[in-house]
C-alpha cells in the first residue's frame, strides 16, 4: 500500500494535490449547504432552497458575493500580519489532507495508486503539528486587527484550541499503542478486524469531544460567540480574507472528521464483514465509504450545534483540563499496561485480573468522590438555611422575612 503511493510519478502527485484541494473546497461548499439545511430542519424550517436545485449552489453564490465585497483593512491594524493571518489559517487546514488516506488501491490515469497524497511514518504527528500552526492564524488575526473584540476572541480561541489539542493528542496515544505506528495507512490497516472506535471507545469519545473544541464549533464556539464578541477573532475581516477564515473553519471540520474516520472508523475500508465492496468501481468504492464516514461525523457536528447551548468559558476550560485530560491519562495507563501484557504473552486470566483490579479501584474511587460531594452539598444546604446575618439578596423563590428594626433604621 505504501509502496504504490511512494512510486507515484511527479505529474500524478501534482494531479492528486489538485484533486485533494478541489475535494476540500467542494466539501466546504457542500458542508455549509448541508449544515444550513439540517439545522433548519431541526428548527422546523426549510433552509436555503432557492439557488440551484435544493439550494445546492447557495454557498457558491454566497462565496461570490463575499469575494466581490469591499476589502477593509482597519487603520489601527498591523497591515502585513493582518494579511498573513488568514493565509496561515487557510493553508494549514489544507495541509492536513496530505496524509489522509481517502481510498484504497485504485487506478488513476492508468497508474496504480491510492487517493492519498503522501505517507510519512509520523503522519498523525504531522497532522497535530500542522493544526497547531493553524492556531497562529487565529492569534495573529486577533492581535493584528488592533481592536478589542478580535483580541479577546483570538485569545479565547487560541487558549481553547491549545487546551483541546492536548486532550486530542492524548486520545491518539491509545491508537498509536494499539496500531504500533503513527502512519495513517498502518493505522487503517490495523483496523481490519475491529474499529478502534469500539476497541478504544473512551479514546474515541474524548477525541470526538475535543475535535469539536478544537474546531471552535458549537457548543464550544464561545470564542466566536456572536452575541458577545461579534464573531471573535475575525470581527475586523471582510471580503476574501473573511472568506478564507470561513473556508479554513469548514476545511478544518472536514479535516478532523477525516482524521477521526482514519483513526477510529477504519478509514476508507468498508465496515468489517462488508469487505467485498472494496473492489467495486475499481477500488473507488472505498472512497465512497470514506466520504460516508466523514459525512456522518459532520452530521454529528451539525447535530451538536442544533441541540446544545454554548458553554461558559470557565466551564469549558474546566471540562477540558479537569475532566478530559485526567480521564485520558488514566485510560492511557490502562491501555498501556494491557498492551504490555498482551505483547509479552500474558495469559487471559492475568489480563482479566488486572482489568478487575482497575474496575474495583475505579468503583471505590468514584464512591468516595460521590460521598464527598454529597457531604459538600449538605454543608452548603445547611449554610443556606441559616438566617442571614445581613440583608443580602435572597436565593430564588424565597420571600424575604427580614426587616430592619425601626430604631436602627433611623439611626442610619
Amino acid at each position: 500500500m505504501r509502496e504504490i503511493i511512494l512510486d507515484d510519478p511527479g505529474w500524478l502527485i501534482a494531479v492528486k494535490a489538485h484533486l485533494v484541494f478541489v475535494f476540500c473546497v467542494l466539501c466546504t461548499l457542500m458542508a455549509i449547504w448541508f449544515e444550513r439545511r439540517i439545522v433548519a430542519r431541526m428548527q422546523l424550517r426549510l433552509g436555503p432552497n432557492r439557488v440551484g436545485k435544493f439550494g445546492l449552489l447557495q454557498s457558491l453564490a454566497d462565496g461570490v458575493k463575499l469575494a466581490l465585497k469591499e476589502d477593509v483593512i482597519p487603520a489601527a491594524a498591523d497591515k502585513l500580519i493582518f494579511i498573513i493571518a488568514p493565509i496561515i489559517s487557510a493553508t494549514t487546514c489544507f495541509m492536513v489532507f496530505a496524509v489522509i488516506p481517502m481510498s484504497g488501491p485504485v487506478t488513476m490515469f492508468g497508474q496504480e495508486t491510492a487517493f492519498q497524497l503522501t505517507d510519512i511514518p509520523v503522519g498523525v504527528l504531522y497532522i497535530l503539528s500542522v493544526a497547531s500552526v493553524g492556531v497562529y492564524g487565529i492569534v495573529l488575526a486577533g492581535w493584528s486587527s488592533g481592536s478589542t473584540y478580535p483580541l479577546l476572541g483570538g485569545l479565547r480561541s487560541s487558549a481553547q484550541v491549545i487546551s483541546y489539542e492536548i486532550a486530542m493528542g492524548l486520545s491518539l496515544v491509545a491508537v498509536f499503542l494499539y496500531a504500533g505506528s503513527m502512519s495513517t495507512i498502518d493505522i487503517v490497516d490495523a483496523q481490519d478486524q475491529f474499529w478502534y472506535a469500539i476497541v478504544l471507545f473512551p479514546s474515541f469519545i474524548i477525541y470526538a469531544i475535543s475535535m469539536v473544541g478544537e474546531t471552535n464549533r458549537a457548543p464550544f464556539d464561545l470564542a466566536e460567540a456572536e452575541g458577545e464578541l461579534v464573531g471573535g477573532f475575525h470581527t475586523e475581516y471582510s471580503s476574501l480574507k473573511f472568506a478564507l477564515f470561513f473556508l479554513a473553519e469548514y476545511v478544518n471540520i472536514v479535516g478532523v472528521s477525516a482524521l477521526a474516520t482514519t483513526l477510529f472508523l477504519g478509514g476508507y475500508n468498508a465496515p468489517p464483514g462488508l469487505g467485498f465492496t472494496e473492489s467495486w468501481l475499481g477500488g473507488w468504492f472505498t472512497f465512497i465509504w470514506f466520504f460516508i464516514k466523514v459525512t456522518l461525523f459532520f452530521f454529528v457536528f451539525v447535530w451538536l450545534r442544533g441541540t446544545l447551548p454554548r458553554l461558559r468559558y470557565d466551564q469549558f476550560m474546566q471540562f477540558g483540563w479537569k475532566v478530559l485530560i485526567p480521564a485520558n491519562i488514566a485510560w492511557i495507563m490502562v491501555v498501556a499496561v494491557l498492551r504490555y501484557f498482551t505483547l509479552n504473552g500474558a495469559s487471559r486470566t492475568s489480563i482479566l485480573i488486572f482489568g478487575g483490579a482497575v474496575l474495583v479501584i475505579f468503583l471505590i474511587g468514584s464512591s468516595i468522590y460521590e460521598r464527598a460531594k454529597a457531604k459538600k452539598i449538605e454543608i452548603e444546604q445547611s449554610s443556606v438555611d441559616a438566617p442571614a446575618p445581613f440583608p443580602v439578596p435572597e436565593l430564588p423563590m424565597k420571600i424575604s422575612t427580614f426587616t430592619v428594626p425601626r430604631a436602627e433604621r433611623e439611626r442610619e
Partner: protein
Amino acid sequence: MSELEPKRAIDGAAEESINIPIDGPAPLLAQLKGFWVTFTAQFKKVTTVQYPEVKEATAPRFHGRHQLNRHPDGLEKCIGCELCAWACPADAIYVEGADNSDEQRYSPGERYGKVYQINYLRCIFCGLCIEACPTRALTMTNEYELADDSRKKLIFEKEDLLAPLRSGMLPAPHPYYPGTDDQDYYHGRVTQAHPSQEQK
C-alpha cells in the same frame, strides 16, 4: 384593627418559605434527551411558507395599508378634521382640510380632506388613527406588501388610499342625494347614488 388583618395574612404567608430543591446535574439520559428532540424534529412538518409563491391569508383584523372609505353614493367620508394626524404617535399622517361648496362637494357637511398623505416609512400600524376617526372614514385593509425602493413611493397620497368605487357609487365631487342633507348621510339613510347626482 381590621386594617391590619390583611397585612398579617401576608406576613403569615411569608413565614412559610417555598422550598425549591437544589438539584445536581441531571442524569445522563435526561441530558441526552435533547439530542432525540432535535433528531426527531428533522422529520416533522416544516412551518416555512414559500412566501412569494404561496401567500397565506392574514388574520382578519391584521393591520395593513389604510383605506379612506366612501359613503354608499360615492361621497368621501373624510371630513378633514385631522384627528387621525393628531392621534398618530409616529407623525405619519398629513391632512389639509378645505371647505365643501354646493358646486364642489366631496363629502357631506362643511369640510373635506383636500390633501391626505400617509408616510409608510413612519407608520407603525398601531391603528390609533382608526380609533380617532369620527366618521369611520379611515380604516385598515389586510394588504401588507408595502415594500418599495424610494421615499416618494412610500408616501401614499389620497388617490392611493381612497376606496375603489363600488357599483352604485359616483366619483366625488357631486351634490347630495336629492332631498337629503349631511345628517341623512351620517345616519346611513343614503344607500346609493341617484342619476341626478352625476356631474356634467
